[in-house]
């Protein structure tokens, strides 16, 4: 297929009519459309998507409602019509596919898709194709199931990383769409049809066997098993429908929660701050109470210096009195000794007899000492009084509460500062969440969590029912095997159909696994080749694919490289896409929206050089930061057919202009 021209009227930011002409020459097969973020690049991708499939996708591949696609400025002027027209070639035929949406006459302001009338027309070589055949015709060369590989949204690159996480919901969805793109559904459908035929034949066999005597037990058993199988299948069907609804509801809630995450976080912080404020004011109160209690004895600290000085004076006085007492006691002792010596006429020191002259000297000394003794006055009462006073003062000098009071004051002061900060923060957070219904946010979060549990329970229930279904099918097979030994049973046509259908089911079942394995091998080979061309790291030997179509990079020894940068992830994802394209289909146009976000200049250059070789038309929607016109285009300048620029006319109106290369 080769795209020729896209025309769109009032589509998303493009008020009025705009058009893009695609490159048609094999040598110059690259077209670039430059636009800043939020100007309309992704809308161009959606214009193509809507043109082919009547759908436009937003974030996380959610379908955008029709009333949101029509240019807002046009609707303000009362113009609610929107149209796309895509012309293309395939298999030697030229096509023109037109799709138009207009509001119903009786609706003044559309608010839902049902308020619109959709019309479409497909011309092949100028001849109109019947409406009911349009989808089948488009599917021959651009089936919607494979569209994610030709209308490629850069956001998808991040989704591919999910493939590496086993069991990841996103990864499972991508794996399903990859397998769809590679033809596995044809075989799955074949198996399903064979199973349906088998079941119908089994029921018929049951009815046939009723007529054969001796088979009643087997027939009853078969009937019971078939009836149970029908019940299980209905249950599974209902539960899968319910699961789909639950998942859709959950996805909407996830979006809401993501959008309100900041509000929720602010509310959580607000609650925490309010609790802290409460604790703060409580602590302040407690410290105040403690402080007031300590004031009782603070008066002692006022007089501490005077009391200390007074005590020192008293101590000095007390010491003097004590010294006098000791001196008097010593003298009394000496007097005692001398008296003994005089009385006994023997020296108390050496023990020898005292001569008269010595006796006279001793007598004089005794007199002197007695006079001294009399001269020393010892006031015992005074000493006791002073000691008592000192004890009183010591009580007053015990450590006072002032240092503790100062500590309380300091702590209270710190808490007051913190309190002011908390008050300010609380006010700020209140402003932030003002007008938001935080109760509603909390409700939706709780609801989402509940839905996750329901999803899990439903999935488990489905698995359990499938296990029962499987058992019943096996039991039926056992009965069928036994019946094959019975000539009359074997002859019944229903048994013959069962045999054919059963074998067909086994063949298709086995073929699905074979095809998956074959495709994975092919994809792995093609992706590896692409990776080696795109990577700037010469040491990498290639890629290895896992069961989810996730790819691991292999180093020169064939070992997995475990640490990969965001840029490496993009290269791997692009390699996978190229591998899928080559394994699953012939070359066709690729339209890519901002695929280069996380890549360094080296990788970008490789991709720009490589991609044009993988397709007959490469259309890239980029911004200047991704692909700088001044230096990134030099490698492919010879392949560029045209460059367009998206320009802002107003916040709700962009236009596209062709610019000189």
């Amino acid at each position: 297929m080769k795209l020729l021209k896209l025309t769109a009227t009032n589509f998303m930011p493009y008020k009025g009519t705009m058009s893009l002409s695609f490159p048609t020459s094999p040598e110059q097969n690259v077209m670039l459309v430059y636009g800043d973020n939020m100007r309309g690049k992704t809308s161009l991708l959606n214009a193509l998507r809507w043109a082919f499939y009547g759908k436009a996708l937003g974030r996380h591949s959610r379908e955008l409602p029709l009333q949101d696609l029509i240019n807002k400025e046009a609707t303000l002027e009362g113009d609610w019509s929107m149209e796309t027209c895509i012309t293309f070639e395939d298999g030697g035929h030229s096509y023109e596919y037109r799709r138009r949406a207009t509001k119903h006459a009786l609706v003044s302001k559309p608010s839902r898709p049902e308020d619109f009338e959709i019309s479409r027309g497909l011309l092949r070589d100028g001849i109109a194709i019947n409406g009911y055949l349009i989808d089948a015709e488009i599917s021959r060369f651009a089936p919607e199931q494979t569209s994610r590989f030709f209308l490629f949204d850069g956001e998808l690159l991040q989704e591919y990383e999910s493939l590496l996480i086993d069991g990841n919901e996103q990864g499972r969805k991508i794996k399903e769409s990859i397998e769809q793109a590679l033809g596995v559904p044809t075989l799955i459908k074949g198996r399903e049809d064979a199973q349906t035929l088998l079941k119908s034949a089994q029921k018929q066999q049951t009815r046939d066997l009723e007529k054969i005597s001796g088979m009643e037990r087997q027939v009853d058993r078969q009937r019971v098993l078939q009836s149970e199988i029908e019940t299980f299948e209905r249950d599974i069907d209902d539960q899968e429908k319910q699961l789909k609804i639950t998942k859709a509801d959950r996805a909407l809630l996830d979006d809401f929660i993501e959008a309100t995450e900041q509000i929720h976080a602010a509310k959580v912080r607000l609650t925490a701050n309010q609790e802290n404020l409460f604790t703060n004011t409580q602590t302040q109160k407690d410290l105040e109470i403690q402080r007031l209690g300590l004031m009782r004895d603070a008066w002692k600290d006022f007089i501490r210096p005077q009391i200390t000085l007074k005590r020192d004076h008293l101590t000095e006085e007390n010491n003097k009195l004590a010294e006098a007492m000791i001196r008097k006691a010593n003298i009394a002792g000496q007097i005692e000794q001398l008296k003994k010596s005089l009385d006994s006429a023997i020296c108390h020191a050496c023990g020898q007899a005292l001569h008269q002259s010595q006796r006279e000297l001793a007598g004089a000394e005794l007199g002197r000492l007695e006079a001294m003794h009399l001269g020393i006055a010892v006031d015992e009462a005074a000493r006791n009084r002073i000691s008592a006073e000192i004890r009183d003062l010591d009580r007053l000098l015990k450590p006072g509460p002032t240092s503790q009071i100062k500590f309380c004051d300091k702590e209270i002061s710190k808490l007051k500062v913190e309190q002011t900060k908390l008050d300010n923060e609380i006010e700020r957070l209140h402003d932030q969440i003002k007008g938001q219904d935080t109760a509603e946010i909390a409700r939706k979060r709780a609801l989402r969590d509940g839905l996750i549990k329901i999803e899990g329970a439903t999935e488990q229930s489905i698995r359990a029912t499938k296990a029962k279904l499987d058992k019943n099918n096996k039991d039926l097979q056992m009965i069928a095997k036994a019946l094959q030994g019975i000539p009359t049973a074997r002859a019944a046509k229903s048994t013959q159909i069962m045999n054919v259908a059963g074998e067909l089911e086994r063949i298709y079942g086995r073929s699905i696994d074979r095809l998956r394995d074959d495709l994975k091998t092919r994809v792995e080979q093609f992706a590896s080749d692409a990776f080696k061309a795109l990577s700037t790291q010469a040491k990498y030997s290639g890629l290895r694919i896992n069961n989810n179509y996730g790819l691991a990079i292999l180093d020169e020894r064939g070992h997995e490289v475990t640490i990969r940068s965001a840029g490496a992830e993009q290269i791997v994802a692009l390699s996978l896409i190229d591998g899928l394209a080559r394994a699953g289909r012939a070359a066709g146009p690729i339209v890519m929206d901002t695929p280069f976000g996380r890549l360094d200049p080296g990788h970008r250059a490789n991709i720009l050089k490589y991609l044009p070789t993988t397709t007959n038309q490469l259309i890239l929607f980029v911004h200047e930061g991704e692909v700088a016109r001044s230096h990134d285009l030099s490698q492919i300048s010879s392949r560029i057919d045209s460059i367009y620029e998206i320009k802002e006319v107003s916040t709700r109106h962009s236009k596209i202009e062709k610019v000189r290369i």
Partner: protein
Amino acid sequence: MSTENDQDLALTALLAAATDVEAVLPVSFIKASYAIQRRHQFNQDQTISMHDLEKLVEDHLAQGEAK
């Protein structure tokens, strides 16, 4: 953007699977069943392929009786 390539791969896998399970059904029958699936692969009405398969099986059994 033709899907010819992947259809060949699917048929190749189908015929190889028939060998794997030692199928007694003839190759022509298997190919014919596959052709039905391919013809209706993007058809919204999922009962049409079933109807065609039933007819194919009937004809196959009738041929067997004739022999």
